């Protein structure tokens, strides 16, 4: 799939689209199959509005994170720091909103303080991401190593700033981001789900319709060729990692709002869930391939699977193994389909 490169020739974009559509179709098939099996096994328990809402809300945080991770993976990189940035940004936001008792902030209307706190948290996430990009492009560190370092830095800063204490007493205006609903009458959709859909649409548009988005695929397809073709590789990569950090921070802030508490321990290991969602979603670790829709569906598969294990009353001691088997089967199924197409 390395030739899936937007700058190569006139025919390339449609080729990308075709590959993308095929892989998304497979993922939809897997997800539908899982839902069908669960509906048969536990019936109404799975299909109840409460359960479906709960599952979608749960995976929306992972899906937001996975969308950022997808960008890094398309360029052939990875961002291991996203779980730590998830915690760091949420802590900055929660501290700003609930803990920093300087007169300027305490005198501020709550809503304004919430908005500024969220923006500051997002900025901190984007800044961490940009730092990743700078380490990768300016110091030429491999993404795996650079983000392994910042993973530790962001986590360590989170512990240091909070001393390990959780930050509670957050105002309702903030909790709305994670716990509220938007809608009319009896149709009420949880805010994080709306957030996920809006962000997914934005990033899908970005990747498919903007020049910068095409460059992201081009870099992953063949970095040297892209460079020769005039793609500003380093600058694009820095933007990609900054966006990845931004998405991690949004997921972290929304999770803190959902739980009503900011914690330095939040998001441990979530980077692995995000990576798994992106790969299940049809992206290649070699870069150049992957879609936002696929990643969201990948996160959905993980979410439905986790929910299914709970509904089926599977003992926690076996759940990890089952989760692993399904990931391997899902990715293999997708890979076999691709190979047959070739």
């Amino acid at each position, binding site marked *: 799939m390395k030739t899936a490169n937007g700058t190569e020739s006139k025919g390339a974009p449609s080729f990308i689209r075709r590959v993308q559509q095929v892989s998304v179709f497979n993922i939809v098939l897997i997800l539908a199959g899982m839902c069908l099996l669960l509906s048969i096994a536990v019936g109404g328990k799975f299909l109840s509005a409460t359960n479906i809402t709960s599952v979608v809300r749960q995976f929306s945080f992972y899906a937001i994170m996975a969308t950022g991770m997808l960008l890094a993976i398309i360029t052939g990189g990875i961002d291991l720091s996203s779980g730590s940035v998830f915690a760091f940004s949420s802590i900055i936001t929660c501290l700003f909103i609930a803990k920093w008792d300087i007169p300027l902030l305490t005198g501020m209307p709550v809503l304004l303080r919430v908005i500024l706190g969220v923006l500051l948290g997002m900025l901190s996430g984007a800044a961490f991401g940009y730092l990743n990009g700078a380490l990768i492009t300016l110091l030429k560190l491999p993404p795996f190593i650079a983000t392994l370092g910042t993973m530790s830095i962001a986590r360590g800063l989170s*512990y240091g700033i909070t001393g390990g204490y*959780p930050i509670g007493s957050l105002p309702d205006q903030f909790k709305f981001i994670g716990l509220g609903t938007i809608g009319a009458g009896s149709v009420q959709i949880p805010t994080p789900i709306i957030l996920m859909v809006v962000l997914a649409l934005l990033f899908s548009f970005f990747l498919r319709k903007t020049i910068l988005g095409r460059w992201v695929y081009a870099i992953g397809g063949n970095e040297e060729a892209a460079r020769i073709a005039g793609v500003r590789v380093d600058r694009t990569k820095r933007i990609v990692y900054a966006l990845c950090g931004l998405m991690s921070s949004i997921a972290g802030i929304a999770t803190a709002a959902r739980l009503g*508490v900011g914690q330095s321990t939040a998001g*441990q290991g979530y980077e692995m869930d995000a990576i798994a969602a992106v790969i299940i979603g049809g992206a290649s670790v070699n870069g150049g391939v992957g879609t936002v829709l696929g990643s969201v569906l990948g996160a959905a598969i993980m979410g439905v699977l986790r929910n299914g294990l*709970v*509904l089926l*009353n599977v003992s926690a001691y076996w759940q990890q193994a089952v989760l692993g088997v399904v990931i391997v089967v899902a990715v293999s199924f997708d890979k076999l389909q691709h190979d047959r197409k070739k």
Partner: protein
Amino acid sequence: MKKVLSFLLVALLVLGASSAFAEEVEIAVVPKALDNAIFLDAKTAAEEKGAELGVKIYWEGSPTSDAAAQVNVIESLIERQVDGILISCNDADALKDVIDRAVDAGIAVGCFDSDSPESKRAFYCGTDNYAIGKLSAEYMMEYLPEGGKVAILTGVLGAPNLEMRITGFKETLAAAGSPIEVLPVQTGEDDVQKSVEVVSQFTAANPDLAGWFFDGGWPYFADPDALPEVKAFMERGGRIVSIDTCEPMMQYVGLGMVDILIGQNYPTMGALGVETLYKIIKGEEVDLGDETNYIDTGYEIVDINNYEEVWAGKAPW
């Protein structure tokens, strides 16, 4: 000249030695991990006791729960020649050798919260985890005399203290011939979000669920607004017994979102641990508990009758 010099040298040595003698006692307190909020009360109490006794307290540990990383921490403490180490072991066997080396190097070592019984440590002060599992089962049987389905929420699988609580819980129910049916264990992997999601989904999916046993209080670190399913569960007559009595959890007792909290006594573990080590270092007479040198720090029980009083006594988080 030589005489004067040697005299000076001896004087210097004596001075140096006496100043070393006057140096304050240094005790390092090593939790399982720095990222576990449960140890914060032990830290505060250890530091307060340190200030009272004139002991310098170092709070050091690995960022996450990891026995190998903890071994490295102890090794560096041996290098630094601290006077005492108080440790909560991630793994009883993995820490044994390094604890023995510390003791051989003349460092007084005690365990708190999680023991390494085969090592040369002087004592272990902590909660009897089997006993609190047993106690939880007794409360559950009192709440559900007619029986019913009870689910268990645990944290990281395989952690010795959590497994002991589950064993204590299950064995007590079985021994009493209780009609309570224990469902397969669910885990939130020590993560607040995962714990909240698992409890919410499981509760919503099992309308016939009668009780929950949380062998650690992870869901109660979240805001009460985040747990509408738990609120609904309690309103329809569900019963919850939960371990841990951290400050943020107190509000849940008042809200009727948990029947009883059984807390390990972390402040006592921190304070008593430091004090006992201090006495050992100073060569004073000291009580080392029973024949296995186990000092039971007991537990605290919080329910609707006493939660306000207990809450008032806790430092706000």
